[in-house]
């Protein structure tokens, strides 16, 4: 349980990749996403995967990427099996399932290395409404709190004799009810208190709030962004110009 919870909690890591402007990280992640989605040969997938793992290594997040992959493995196998039935080709099915993993890595590169603060900044610079941005940041802020709530409730119910780990699937799901109800009640109380606290701290007083931190992209950010764009264009060119057979 703690292990799963850990996967959702952002940790500040100092790395050359983390310190990039979040918008640049988003750009790189989006480019890799497109390149993964449109890869159609073993070589291309291998190269894209290689590049992404290098970035993950630079960002010191190989372990967390690995953890994400473990979570997605089941779905990847599922894609493999479905394709195997539909297309009868081992190679195509393998490419489809690896491509799925590549897409997962490309997006997690952004989400693992970007703090909620930075995400908020990206959302603000995209001119999303204040309420949407705030709802998102508080949701992220309260993930660890709710996780801890859940763990404590499970422990409390266990000490009263609830055996969460026993029985078949239906029985187990039914056993989650005494955990879910207090969890929901807790969250409702919490959100009521949150609303009061927001109101008491002038939330919504002006249409355009200011921000403590002003972010600006450095020369390095601009260089990295430009470099990644050039590589992206070259890759797309190669994809189109030299279509390799599977």
């Amino acid at each position, binding site marked *: 349980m703690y292990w799963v919870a850990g996967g959702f*909690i*952002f940790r*500040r890591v100092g790395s050359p990749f983390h310190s990039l402007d979040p918008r640049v990280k988003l750009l790189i992640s989006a480019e890799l996403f497109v390149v993964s989605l449109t890869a159609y040969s073993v070589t291309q997938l291998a190269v894209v995967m290689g590049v992404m793992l290098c970035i993950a290594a630079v960002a010191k997040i190989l372990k967390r990427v690995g953890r994400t992959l473990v979570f997605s493995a089941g779905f990847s196998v599922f894609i493999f099996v479905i394709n195997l039935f539909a297309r009868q080709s081992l190679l195509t099915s393998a490419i489809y399932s690896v491509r799925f993993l590549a897409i997962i890595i490309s997006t997690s590169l952004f989400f693992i290395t970007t*703090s*909620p*603060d930075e995400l*908020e900044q990206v959302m603000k610079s995209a001119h999303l409404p204040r309420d949407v941005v*705030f709802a998102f*940041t*508080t949701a*992220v*802020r309260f993930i*660890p*709190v709710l996780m*801890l709530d859940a763990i404590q409730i499970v422990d409390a119910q266990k000490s009263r004799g609830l055996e969460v780990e026993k029985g078949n699937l239906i029985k187990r799901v039914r056993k989650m009810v005494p955990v879910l109800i207090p969890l929901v009640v807790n969250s409702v109380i*919490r959100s009521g*208190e*949150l*609303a*009061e*606290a*927001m*109101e*008491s*701290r*002038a*939330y*919504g*007083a*002006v249409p*355009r*709030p*200011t*921000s*403590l*931190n*002003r972010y600006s992209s450095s020369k390095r950010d601009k260089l990295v962004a430009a470099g990644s764009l050039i590589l992206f264009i070259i890759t797309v060119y190669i994809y189109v110009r030299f279509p390799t057979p599977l």
Partner: protein
Amino acid sequence: MGEIVRVENLSFRYPEAAKFAVRDFELTIKGGEIVMLAGPSGCGKSTLLRTVNGLIPHMYTGEYLGSVSVGDHKVSEARMSELAQTVGLLFQNPENQIFMFSVERDIAFGLENLAVPPDEIRARVDEAMRQLGITDLAQRAPHELSDGQKQRVALAGVIVMRPRLIILDEPTSLLDPKTAVELVELVRRLRDETGITFLIVEHRLELLVRIADRLVVMSEGKKVLDGRPEEILADERAEAYGISIPPVSRLRNQLKRDGLPLENGFGPDELAEELNRQALKR
């Protein structure tokens, strides 16, 4: 200093509720005072606090009679954003009033909402962190803080608004005894340094009586006692209203009933000293 809070003939009933949560309430608080509010759970303390900071009637509807003024504002007519700069409310659970992902961003929240320029926000946030001794926590995430630290962060988020009145609703209920004493010391220091007025709901009387200028006792929505803490603690009626008198005060009251001419005070040391003096006189 003049008057900062004036509650006049206030009654409030939540919608759907059968009884008034606060009834015929009268209260004035002078600038710079530390006023303690006590009473059994459910007697309407939190409701009264909401009427002072404006959550009632701005967020809660219901039957509202009488009037409340804070500083230059009439609460029912002022906007919440104006009130937020006059009254700060610290809720019981600090967890639920920290919204942002880092301590300094959270402290800045109220000022950001008021569109204060970034440079000024920076200066005021730094000052608030210095006042509360949490400068080294600036970059921490909420889940990396202890309960006592969370409370200081929440308090910094209130102080940064430069309010004239700070309201604390059962601030020590989630703290261990040592942290609770530290909080009380902090309140005293802030009042002495900044002249901020405090209105504090607290069950553990022995914690706050030393720094409180006044103790107000509530029962079933009404104000039943109001005076200097040592007077209230010596008042026979207090216990009947569900106030738990600290043991030392109970002993002092008993000795007085038994005929010893004692003055009003709080601590065991003071009592021991007085008893010694009396013993020597005899």
